[in-house]
């Protein structure tokens, strides 16, 4: 993340290299999740002898954890707004809050996976189960990487090395974080809100 600071030259588009690179990367990520969501859509009805999606999904529970994740986008914006004002204390508070909300979402996912496993839905049970765990698992890994980046920024801030002039770093990681949230809206709608087949 340090190249932009190093080469302070004006860019052709006016956007820094790092930020433009993040946008291009997020474009690429759309296709990654697009392919995973397509795989899930092909396989959502193929549960073989295992549990069917409509039998095990707990929509109220996942709605609550989705709400938690979406709220973390709000706190992310507050963190960016704080560091842009030079308010490092509030920046730290909101970074930590964002990371905690993300962790709460991951905790919900772990709980959900464990429950499904107890109900007989293992990773190797059926094409449906493999596709479900792979899609939501990939999203969970993305959130976890986001949490690691948030915590790294939080610790940097405690050490005094994340200051007002680094607000673009917060903004770029924020872009990633918002993307992961927006993708979840699609995943949540496709997996949980579209009526699922039952056995």
């Amino acid at each position, binding site marked *: 993340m340090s*190249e932009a600071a*190093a080469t302070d030259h004006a860019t052709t588009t006016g956007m820094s290299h790092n930020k433009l*690179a993040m946008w*291009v990367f997020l474009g*690429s990520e759309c296709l*990654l999740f697009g392919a995973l969501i397509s*795989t899930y859509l092909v396989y959502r009805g*193929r549960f073989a002898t295992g549990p069917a999606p409509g039998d095990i999904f707990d929509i109220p529970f996942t709605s609550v954890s989705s709400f938690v994740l979406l709220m973390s986008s709000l706190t992310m914006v507050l963190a960016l707004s704080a560091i842009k004002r030079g308010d490092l204390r509030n920046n730290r508070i909101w970074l930590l809050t964002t990371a905690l909300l993300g962790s709460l979402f991951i905790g919900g996912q772990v709980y959900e996976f464990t429950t499904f496993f107890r109900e007989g839905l293992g990773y190797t049970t059926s*094409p449906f189960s493999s596709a479900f765990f792979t899609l939501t698992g990939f999203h969970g890994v993305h959130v976890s990487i986001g949490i690691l980046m948030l915590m790294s920024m939080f610790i940097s801030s405690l050490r005094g090395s994340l200051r007002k002039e680094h607000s673009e770093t917060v903004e770029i990681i924020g872009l990633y974080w918002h993307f992961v949230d927006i993708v979840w809206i699609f995943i949540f709608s496709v997996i949980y809100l579209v009526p699922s087949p039952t056995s």
Partner: protein
Amino acid sequence: MTATTTVEDVVGQPLGVYTRPRGGNGWRDWITTVDHKKIGILYGVAALFFFVVGGIEALLIRLQLATPNGTVLGADMYNQVFTMHGVTMIFLAAMPLSAAFANYLIPLQIGARDVALPRLNALSFWVFLAGGIVLNLSWVLGGAPDGGWFGYAPNTGIVFSPSPGMDFYALGLQMTGIASLVSSINLTVTILNMRAPGMTLFRMPVFTWMILVTQLLLVFAMPVIAVALFLLAFSRLFGARFFDPSVGGDALLWQHLFWIFGHPEVYILILPSFGIISEVIPTFSRKPIFGYPFMVFSGIAIGFMGWGVWAHHMFVSGIGPISVAAFSLSTMFIAVPTGVKILNWMATMWGGRIKFSAPMLFAVGVVSMFTIGGLSGVTHAISPADTQQTDTYYIVAHFHYVIFGGIIFGLFAGLYFWWPKVFGHQLSDLIGKVNFWVMLVGFNLTFGPMHVLGLQGMARRIDSYSPGFGFEFWNMVSTIGSFLIALSIAIFVVNVIRSAMKAKGQPPCGPDPWDARSLEWLTPNPTPVHDFDEIPVVESLDEFWHRKYGTDENGRVVRVASAEEVCQDGSAVGVHLPSPSFWPIVFAAGLPFIALGLIFNLWLTVPGGLLVVMAIYAWVFEPVDDPDAAHGDVSEVADTTEEAPVV
């Protein structure tokens, strides 16, 4: 070679846990380099090495098929060799050789001193190399991949392919895919963000345009193959049921995912070559490229339409008549922008004072041979004909005319054309011409007969054939042709060595050996470490040519300046350049441990993962290089003469 690093001493100890490497002499400089030119050379050397490896695999295939009931390889080994031939040539030779040109030339063509994210550029190369090594380690670690480069399910499953070969395929290609993705993001940002003043999008050379389209294709195609390879790897390693028909898994899913990546991949391979010959043909025809906007827009059109034709690889997979009809039509349509390009190259040559130097010969080779491949491609678009041709040698003939005739010839045109730019001396033009004619004859002898064999019904991917089907003669011709191709590669190697030896002790060749047109020739040959003495201000397409030529009062083109007057002399000092870094290669070194760990013993993933995590954190907290530290404070001239290494 040392100019990047000697001044590191000036930088002093910056803040933070890690310091930037101080570099040094020789190999240390190469493994920590972030210089786009050195990375380009590294890509080129690695790609040509893998090209030879893939070529040896091709010769083994041709030896096996030279006579009926061949016994050179045997069925199992044949499967491995033809799989690795395809994987090596596509992912480890053609793509990285294009990346070599892109890395070296893009900053020079747009008037920049490096790519946007230099350390990520180094990362791309090292991860690609690690992926290539992992793929080829399979030969000694239990067997190479044997499911074809297309890896159709369920043949690639643990049941039909019990050796670890397909695990190496899934994980090795995942690594080269990461490398391509990182590199494509980097080059996209570079082209969009680092153009010199006045270098508008429509003043960019056609090569730069084609590379931009290629990178955008990579940005969106790589994640799709990544998902396909994850599904395959999870199926084989963790027992996921994606491709298990007994519980409802669908083999067609793999085919769709693979070809949604795979067909854009065809254009990812061909567009850089199109870009190269779009630079070569105008230069040697002494004319501007005919219909520049059409060249650019047809390239963009290919980039878009390339996403809508993938199912023509699947006409006999049972996808239904409506899909077949739709994809037949879109496949015929995509021949239109390609035809536009071919007509424009011919119109560029038309009426030009053509000089048939070696690069031009290879470029004309592309135009003619690719046209044959394109036409046989249109015959596949007609689905009833394709039903007859699928899985026969007719298909093999088609895609080799496209890939060898279209891409390899184009890359060789580029090698001969830009060799003086990179190494400061020209390759022998006479040997180059011999190289071209031997390659052209060998290529047509090898792949021309495959049209006949295919229409006679010889099946591809089968390790032997029985006598009495009329296959004997043309197979023998094809095998003889393949050894002629090998001879032409040997001639190229001889040319490289001989030219380097002749150039030793000589001053570098002049600044403009070909009377070229685009911005990269504004720098001296070989390119100095800082590229441009001062960033040029661009006023037109073919900027370099317009600085050399003007018009007299009668409107006739006259030379107004010599190349020596126009070119920069590379004498600038005090140019700030990005510092080298250890962490790209450390990151890349961790990935093979993770891959081998997933295949053999999960404990191995621990050191691999630690290396990767350490590299990431060290990378992020590495001190930014000091903006006040300038490179090249030592005598630049003395260094650039040493800069031409013998490859």
